[in-house]
């Protein structure tokens, strides 16, 4: 295989990795504040695309505005989901909450089908369908958008976490929820905000990809699982690790297509997921903690 071809695969891996990173960030943020794996995370990705298409094609809004509407609406859906389905379960039992998110995932995808129909829908590229050449390899301009938006999201998140009081509250909750409550942090608000942010990140990913791949009511679960694999690969609960996990997973997938075959491409993420769970459950970048009684 030539160097250019390899670079081509690497660029594709980077682009997919950025998407996985955004979805993984959503998992990580919710996990950090609640200890819950949010199985509805993939549906936020789906909604981001679907709602943007709706705003653009059905409402006739200009694309940038439609994109903002798509992401914001999904964020609100995320927060409302938390308020209606997560918060009422008072004991916060993680297994119960996980099961609730499984149910939520069904309801969200089904609602999207009721509202927007069963067909695939598309969005135009943000700035033309052209490609740029990087050392001979072609990269779609839309992919540059994806990478840029991911970088922007990570930077904003970094700012939120390190420079705002809300971010500090979120970090405190991640370390120890009870202690955070004791020092006067409104942990319930943190949980709602976490779902809102997670939904926005997922929606951003879904929005950015739709011009390349189209979208439909049922795309959520498969992307959700990959984002989840990325979060686990990095180390659940740590945002930087989630981004790293996403990029590594994207690369692994691309390289497996390049060197093995594309038949089992979708299984790669899952095999990675199982291997990490079995051999390094704290993730590549996580530290192993001593269990306490």
């Amino acid at each position, binding site marked *: 295989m030539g160097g250019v071809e390899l670079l081509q695969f690497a660029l594709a891996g980077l682009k997919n990795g950025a998407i996985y990173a955004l979805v993984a960030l959503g998992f990580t943020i919710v996990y950090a504040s609640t200890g819950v*794996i949010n*199985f509805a995370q993939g549906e936020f990705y789906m909604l981001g695309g679907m709602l943007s298409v709706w705003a653009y094609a059905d409402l006739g809004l200009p694309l940038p505005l439609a994109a903002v509407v798509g992401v914001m609406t999904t964020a609100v859906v995320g927060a409302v989901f938390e308020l209606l*389905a997560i918060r*009422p*379960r008072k004991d916060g039992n*993680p*297994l*119960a*909450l*996980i*099961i*609730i998110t*499984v*149910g*939520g*995932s*069904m*309801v969200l*995808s*089904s*609602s999207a*089908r*009721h509202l927007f129909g069963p067909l695939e829908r598309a969005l135009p590229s943000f700035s033309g369908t052209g490609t740029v050449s990087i050392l001979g390899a072609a990269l779609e301009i839309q992919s540059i958008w994806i990478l840029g938006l991911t970088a922007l999201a990570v930077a904003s998140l970094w700012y939120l976490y390190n420079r705002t009081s809300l971010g500090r509250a979120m970090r405190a909750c991640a370390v120890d929820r009870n202690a955070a409550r004791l020092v006067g942090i409104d942990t319930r608000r943190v949980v709602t905000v976490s779902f809102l942010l997670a939904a926005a990140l997922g929606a951003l990913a879904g929005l950015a990809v739709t011009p390349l791949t189209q979208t439909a009511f049922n795309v959520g*679960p*498969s992307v959700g*699982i990959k984002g*989840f*694999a990325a979060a*686990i690969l990095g180390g659940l609960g740590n945002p930087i690790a989630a981004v790293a996990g996403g990029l590594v997973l994207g690369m692994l997938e691309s390289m497996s297509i390049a060197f093995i075959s594309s*038949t*089992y491409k*979708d*299984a790669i993420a*899952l*095999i990675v*997921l*199982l291997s990490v*769970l*079995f*051999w390094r*459950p704290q993730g590549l970048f996580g530290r192993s903690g001593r*269990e306490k*009684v």
Partner: protein
Amino acid sequence: MRERIDMRLVVAAVLGLTVVAAVAGLPFFTSERYILRVFTFAGVNVIIITGMALLFGYAGQVSLGHAAFFGVGAYASAFVVTQLGWPWIGGVIVAIVLTATGGLLLALPSLRLKGHYLAMATLAFGEIMRVVFTEARTVTGGPDGLSGIPYPSLGPLAFDSASASYWLVWAVAGITLLLAANLVRSRAGRAMRALHGSELGATACGIDITGIKVRVFVISASFAGLAGALYAHVVGFISPSTFSLHVSVLLVAMAVLGGTSSLLGPVIAAVLLTLIPFSDAVIPGLSRSALETIQEWQEDIYGLTIIAVMIFMPGGIGGLLRRIGTGRSAER
């Protein structure tokens, strides 16, 4: 006190016998293939849910990949019967052995860890198997699936009619339920409920909580495998969509609605939720458009059921039945 218990036993026995008679007698009341088919399918789900009930309702673990075990059982049995010419019972044994082994390999590493790694591992396993079912064409027939799978038969006994396969499936369901009921009313069942109540307390009683969870998972996986070996031959056709994540989630909905520390609850839930898309089989005058509306909204029904049960009645139908049985005012 004593008399009350005896009365309850009598009521339970009468109810139980009525249900058994009704289940066994269904083919005498209707000869319509469609209705028998639907209830046969419900019986298959009852077998799977019996294992899920042990896993979720007793051992407090959740699997998001049980449809995959169901599928492994179905494909394995179909393969050895159609390709290798084995008798059906051989297919059943292969299905059980494969799913039990798979369950063990999946459960051992993930149950050693705290938290909910089993849910994630089973989810990944289910998706891997979905890819395998679609891509391993020589064994599975790819996306189109396998058809022409012969009816189950035991020696000279061929279950080649709708009513015969109905009886076979429900007889097997009855046996699995009986085994499970024996299990939960014994030392092993107590250990399961104990670890659900308090893992620390259970460990202090000398209960190897990981060992128990692994065993329960293996049992539940092999029940699903057994159900697969029945389903493939009774229906005669299998394809990947029958064993998707979607079906795994439906099974979770049945287990959740069925409730904790109960076998009866999950059985009722499995039958109810199985019937939803086939409501016309139980509601005679149901119009075509009403049925389509129900089918259109079934996902929402399943999803909302899961959420509502987890929030408003975490004990599920089982908890409800217990409350009626003991006259306790509220569940703690």
